[in-house]
């Protein structure tokens, strides 16, 4: 399993230089395979695609993943252009995770009817690849067929969308066995649809490794970030990984459940958190250390071939 790290782009008050520096140092740490972002509109947070673009400018190797982007809130033609742009600028490093999201206030703020989200996502998924291939709305993405698309969600409709339109599934968080159950469903849908191979499996978790005070700050952030879920926020905050041991077990659990890439998101706007995570991860046997940039492109090509179902 590969491990990525999230940008602190949705932690209120995180300064711009922290985000950009974080991206640069994350790549330099060598152990992370991707940088992830979350998507929230009506919140003190950075735009996910712009944050990834800034990260792209200061990195050359890591994948740049949205986990997830609330697709239905965005105009599809514009999203197609932005994604193609980011893919082209980054040399083919974008991984586009899309889902309907769960925040009605974001839809309200965007002026898009919440009830239409499923339909809009389906239409968007059906359109994105065609737009990238048509070329009428440029630029050409760096890779033929465009960046890989992941779909998130826990409904049968979400798994059906993974199977019909996407390259993989992105899980929204929780203990490994919650992921295992969801991953089984995504694989079942994929396999039933006659898609070749297996869907890519992405997942995420939260960490705060700077001792008790960091754990408190992180918990407070999660409670606030997920306040809209009501009492579930407490649950999510309770799953915060606050020790290297917790990180190791979490990583192992996800690897055993068949996760391909696990993105760990910070909850404290503190640059030292990145080193703490890297140190907690170093030496774990289940982690695939990313290849250097020389072999990365060869691997990317192989991955693309595998996605296309070629032996």
């Amino acid at each position, binding site marked *: *399993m590969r491990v990525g790290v999230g940008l602190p782009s949705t932690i209120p008050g995180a300064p711009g230089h922290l985000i950009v520096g974080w991206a640069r140092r994350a790549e330099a740490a060598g152990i992370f395979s991707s940088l992830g972002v979350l998507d929230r509109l009506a919140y003190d947070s950075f735009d996910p695609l712009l944050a990834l673009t800034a990260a792209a400018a200061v990195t050359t190797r890591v994948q740049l993943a949205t986990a997830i982007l609330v697709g239905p809130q965005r105009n599809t033609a514009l999203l197609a252009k932005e994604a193609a742009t980011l893919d082209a600028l980054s040399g083919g490093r974008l991984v586009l995770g899309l889902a309907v999201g769960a925040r009605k206030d974001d839809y309200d703020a965007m002026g898009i009817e919440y009830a239409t989200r499923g339909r809009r996502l*389906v239409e968007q998924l*059906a359109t994105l*690849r*065609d737009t990238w*291939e048509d070329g009428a709305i440029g630029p050409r993405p760096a890779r033929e*067929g465009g960046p890989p698309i992941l779909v998130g969600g826990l*409904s*049968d*409709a979400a*798994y*059906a969308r993974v*199977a*019909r*339109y*996407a*390259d993989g599934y992105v899980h929204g968080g*929780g*203990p*490994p*066995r*919650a992921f*295992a*159950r969801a991953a*089984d*469903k*995504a*694989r*079942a*849908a994929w*396999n*039933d*649809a*006659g*898609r*070749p*191979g*297996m869907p890519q499996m992405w997942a995420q978790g939260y960490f705060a490794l700077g001792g008790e005070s960091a754990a408190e700050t992180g918990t407070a952030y999660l409670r606030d970030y997920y306040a809209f879920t*009501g*009492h*579930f926020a*407490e*649950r999510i905050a309770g799953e915060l990984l606050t020790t290297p041991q917790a990180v190791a077990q979490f990583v192992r659990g996800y*690897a*055993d*459940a*068949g*996760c*391909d890439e696990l993105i760990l998101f910070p909850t404290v706007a503190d640059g030292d958190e990145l080193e703490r995570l890297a140190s907690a991860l170093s030496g774990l*046997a*289940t982690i*695939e250390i990313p290849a250097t940039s020389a072999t990365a492109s060869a691997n990317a090509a192989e991955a693309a071939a595998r*996605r*296309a*179902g*070629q*032996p």
Partner: protein
Amino acid sequence: MKITILGAGPAGLYGAILLKKANPLHEITILERNAPDATYGWGVVFSDRTLAAFQEADYKSYKAITDRFVLWDAIDVYYRDELLRCGGHIFAGLARKQLLALLQRRCAELGVSMRFNTEVADVAALDGGYDLLIAADGVNSLVRKTFADIFKPSLVPGKARYIWLGMEKVLDAFTFIFRENEHGLFQVHSYPFDGTTSTFIVECDETTWRRAGLDAASEDESITYCERLFAPELAGRRLLPNNSKWINFVTVKNATWRHGNIVLLGDAAHTAHFSIGSGTKLAMEDAIALANALDTHPDLDTALGEYEAERRPVVELFQAAAAESQSYFENVKRYTRLTPVEFTFNLLTRSRRITYDDLRLRDPRFGNIVDREFERRYWAGQGRSIFTLIAPPPMFAPLTLRGLRVANRAVFTPATTGQAVSGVPCTGDALELARLAQDGAGMVLTEPVAVATEGRITSDSACLHEDEHLRAWTRIIQAIHTQSPAKVAMPLNHAGWRGATRPRGMGLDRPLRDGAWPLVSASALPYTERSQTPRALDRAGMEGMRDVFAHSAHLADAAGVDLLILHMGHGYLLSSFLSPLTNRRDDEYGGTLEQRMRFPLEVFDAVRAAWPHEKPLAVALNVTDSVRGGFGPDDAATVARTLKEHGCDLLVALAGYVVPQTEMPYRRGFLTPLSERIRNDSGLPTLVGGYLTTADEVNTLLAGGRADLCLMLPPQETRTRSRSAPTVATDAREARATADVREESMPEAGTPAREVRRVEKKE
């Protein structure tokens, strides 16, 4: 805090005990409309896992409960005048009356005020008298009704009728009795509870109930009827009334369980069908969670939220299992085709929480009977009466279809789609098939093979209609037959309106940009908004198509295919005729089901004629289109029975894809219920997939008579890309994922006898 509890059932009493213990300063009052010793119902059952939770929550009441209860570990099934026993399940039963009495004593000891014979007619009358109102007022909760706009309750009555009786006979096992008479099929759920009496629940479907005149029968008349019906099992003992009526089980769900300082507990919040015996257990566990939450969180709103967040997922899992169990008993008539061992195994594994491996562990003797019976049926199918002393697990029993003998029940198919050039399969595909054959499959399944160039799904699809195709397939199949005992199955397909799409690496049903060919279908409708509009097949086209299928069948025989599968599912050409959503024809090939199946049947007959008599012919059929207005299980049953008359030997159970936006309840084995249904309805053997990866899944499915062949995923495709051992990882993951529901409750659960677990907190 001033706490008012409505209802002195197990939930209310137990809640009062735990809250008072946590904080003796709470002023707790229980209001109950009945007298302290009035109770309806007979015994209640707990698993040892629940008892462990009781032990932790309040040792004194736990001790009082365990001092009184009756323990047993067997399940007896009476069916077709045979008795089958399966041991190793642990149950503890106790009279509901005793449970209430001991909880009342404990309440009194702790200083909880209990006011019996106190009818509350209006919740508003209690206003101001409490800081927290706990509605433990049961399935007909007044509080829930009063605030229906907040709780948004859903009350769904079951289809079956049941009556709750006692029996003056001591049982040594949880007992199921199935008895058919001139009125219909009746079943009994019976279990001991107080050393002298047993609970005796009689259940039947609505039609049977009316036919037996029980809709007009008094309590005495009902008892007389049941005593006569179950005379052999009762052996002269009497059935006992307790204000007993024939009722429908009502499943209660609520959108929320709390409203300000009011909270629902137990049956008021949720019910789960009695056949998994979890009602009292869930209610008392609610009380534990509520007391814990109130103890942990000083803020009432947070505490009630935490209580619901903790309990809801657990309750939903049990309600899902209960729904499966309930549906089983409502449709039990469907299973009467099964032999007693199969029937019993099916019954014990009905809600998926117990598997073949679990039963084997609990009762090796029963496991052996299951294996031996499975093999006996194989020999019976051969016209031989052999009942061997030892037999392999069902997965490794052979299967015979006409002249074909398949060595085991595992079917593998390549996980990659083919890379055929001009319809000729490439070497890579051939090697993959051969490898799967050598990896132990009883049978390998090729990708769907097109009967014509225009019938291909993608430009990479393999075909079988020209000499070049025949030569390639002959080479591939010969290699498999030389190198392994595996048989080769091939689906013959015409993609119809789902044709001319791009390879599926980047999505399904994306039309080819260049080089698309004209499509045909039952009607001129495009599959997706972006798809080409097909031409509706005319009579001449249909005749040509029929001949094309027959020609390919002929070539398939020449190539050495062992089992031919005619593809009538997933929205492809023949499927488009069957489904009312896609067949809008106004000729004699559209309209009624009989007319819609006419063309697929013509093709079937032509293929059957072209295909050697000694070789089996299968049909891949949607058991449901899984979309409103589509083809459903009853239609599929009609088609399947007709196909059987026309010489079909096997069905491949499929679902969906007749229109693009279909979704199914995806999970491991999600197609199994459909396979079981069509197999029972038609009497035809079935092959089923639906993401099966373990031998345990396959054995459970086969031994319960749910399918005859299983399409398994090649293990190397299910493994993680981590460096940990793949098979072990898969199994461990599974074990963890299912551990939480498996271990609980009766009668098919109960924890394995040797193991007593402590209660696990949430994940």
